């Protein structure tokens, strides 16, 4: 099983081999030569390194600098502020609930998305009439602008004449238009669930396609062997499909984690993070803070950045072995 997966990757390896062998065959090289050799790849790497420095490291440094300045809502820098933005931020009574909500938001969306996508990918991997059409249709929520999708959902949930409420009224669930029951986006809990549903709706296509790609790369002979050994359907899925799907799954989950953590347009469009920040995640709250105090908003950016890095590190560490196998 391991061999079958590894063979395609082993193929390009010989190209690198002669180099290594030549190095080993040479006599103990002098220090200067070793340094030169170590630096030799630099000209080839330089453009990539420069790009990383320019679009990743420099903005991070700027963000950190901003978080230590006193900048008002008009963009005027009133001078160095030390750590005051951070102390104000950590004393903020809203921060705790915003962070807890962010964790819930990320976890709920990624978990639901992955569950739905696992099923959908399995379905789309099967031959059935109209499969092509379904595959195409699945792209729609991905291709459409997230903001547009969010606006459409907001209209659908309008308490007075949204199509969702009209339908629920007709089947007798919602009794009064304009009532508190019909005001889905006005109630923080209901609003959050609706927004989670929208977020899942827009994340499912990518996740499904990533998993589908993983499924199609599983060779058919593995399944054949399993069938010969008399493995049942569930057993085959657990022992073959799922383990071989893991690399694709990990990539999909990781990308979703970061995307969902940073997701802004859905919440901003549907509730604006309100009422009273009660549907704000940390990204939305950062934006709300920016309207009075850019420095404090910058401090929250640094915190958010740290959280993302932390999530990625923990996730990679937990799945170290799986990623190596892949």
């Amino acid at each position, binding site marked *: 099983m391991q061999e079958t997966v590894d063979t395609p990757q082993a193929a390009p390896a010989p190209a690198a081999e002669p180099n290594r062998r030549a190095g080993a065959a040479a006599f103990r090289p002098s220090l200067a030569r070793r340094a030169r050799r170590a630096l030799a790849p630099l000209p080839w790497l330089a453009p990539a390194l420069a790009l990383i420095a320019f679009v990743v490291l420099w903005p991070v440094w700027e963000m950190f600098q901003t978080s230590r300045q006193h900048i008002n809502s008009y963009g005027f820098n009133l001078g160095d502020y030390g750590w005051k933005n951070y102390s104000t931020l950590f004393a903020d009574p809203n921060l705790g609930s915003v962070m807890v909500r962010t964790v819930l938001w990320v976890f709920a969306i990624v978990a639901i998305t992955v569950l739905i996508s696992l099923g959908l990918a399995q379905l789309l991997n099967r031959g059935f009439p109209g499969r092509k059409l379904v595959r195409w249709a699945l792209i729609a929520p991905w291709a459409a602008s997230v903001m547009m999708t969010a606006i459409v959902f907001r209209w659908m949930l309008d308490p007075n004449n949204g199509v969702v409420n009209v339908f629920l009224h007709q089947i007798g669930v919602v009794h009064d238009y304009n009532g508190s029951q019909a005001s889905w986006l006005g109630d923080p809990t209901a609003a959050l669930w609706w927004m989670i549903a929208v977020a899942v709706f827009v994340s499912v296509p990518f996740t499904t396609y990533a998993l589908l790609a993983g499924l199609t790369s599983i060779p058919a002979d593995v399944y054949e062997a399993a069938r010969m050994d008399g493995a049942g359907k569930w057993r085959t899925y657990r022992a073959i499909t799922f383990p071989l799907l893991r690399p694709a799954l990990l990539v999909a989950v990781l990308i979703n984690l970061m995307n969902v953590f940073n997701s802004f347009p859905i919440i901003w469009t549907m509730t604006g993070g309100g009422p009273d920040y009660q549907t704000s995640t940390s990204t939305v709250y950062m934006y709300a803070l920016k*309207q009075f105090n850019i420095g404090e908003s910058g401090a929250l950016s640094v915190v958010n950045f740290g959280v993302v890095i932390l999530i990625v590190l923990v996730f990679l560490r937990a799945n170290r072995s799986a990623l190596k196998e892949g």
Partner: protein
Amino acid sequence: MKRRLAAAATLGLSAALALSACSSSSTSGSSSSGGGSVTLHFFGADYGTAGTSNTTQTYWQNIATAFHKQYPNITVDVQTIDWNDFPTKLHTLLQSKNYPDIIEGDAPQSYAQEGIAYKASDVLSESTLANLIPTFAKQGDYQGTEYGIPFTTSTRALYYNKKLFAQAGISAAPTTWAELQADAAKISKLGNSTIGYGMPLGTEEAQAESYMWMLGAGGGYVNGGGAYTINSAANVTAFNFMNTLVKAGDTEANPGTVNRATLWSDFAAGSVGMVGGSPAVVPIIQAAGKLTSSDWATAPFPGENGTVTNPLGVDDQIVALNVHNQQSAIQQFLNFAYQDTYQAQFDKEYDLLPATTSAATAEENDPIFGPFVKAIPTSSAYPTNANWSDVSTKIKQTIGAAVDGTAPATVLGQIQTFALSNQ
């Protein structure tokens, strides 16, 4: 592509300028002698709807075009944006150092504090300055000097739907909170998704709705000395009462998430019994075509013990920024834009009130606008504290929580803390 187009346009424009400078130097004797062409950036609020015929973009564009004809070396680049997105967009422009030269729709104090605003007297002729309504002209003051120039004004009153009142068996507009509560309850019991009292505490203009209630309890945002009193006992009383309305179902659901624009159009559609509003509700009612002029009326806003005698008066100010040193061009444009014809045109288009005394006097006996105009001298305006703009944003974002389960004293206390700690 765009840049090339812009370059071609600039070339064409400068050629045209050069030609007109040769042929008719006499048409605009007062234009600046520098000869170089100047572009002023105007950023304003949209009082209509973008993309439709009543957008304010058209209003300003017409002025800019007429102005450009008279002063060919000055081009005014106009940008307007709807009220809900106005603060965000404006702050984004400022934070990225894209300073407009003229801003319409924001309080001038913060700009004056930063030292980037022209004094009103620097950019407006004396006669125009003297014609501004004193109550509102004072609103543009920062440390005793006038920086902001009121452009359009409005006072607030209670709109009520006479048809719904009759159906619910109510004969007259409420004058006290208790009456308002009883009336709202009767109207919301009519069913058919009718809202008794519309209470817009969403982010669009929560500071106005809140202020109307605070005034009814004898409170307000600041005391006589200009110190913030946002969590005063009177204000808490007002919000406690608003809570009883919301809890009883006499208002729309979750007022903290509902914007003024929604409720005004719901009122125009005939499904709201009462709503606080400025004269700008009138065109919305007319456009909807659901209510005839005998189906609705306005009355003074009810207070705790009687009608409010010092109702909310709002003025939207123009402030000119000195960042690009265009004082003479700005002065020429503002004097041009403050002509009576344009003021009247704006009031007609949006049913708002003028900022000039002469125009206000002319409208005093108008059947619809008369009551609003007469309320101007005693009206209560927003604070003029330097950080009011930020405090107002904070109020818009958070005050809805006070009718949404959180104790009013807590919410108002947090806003008060914010107001004091971000001076």
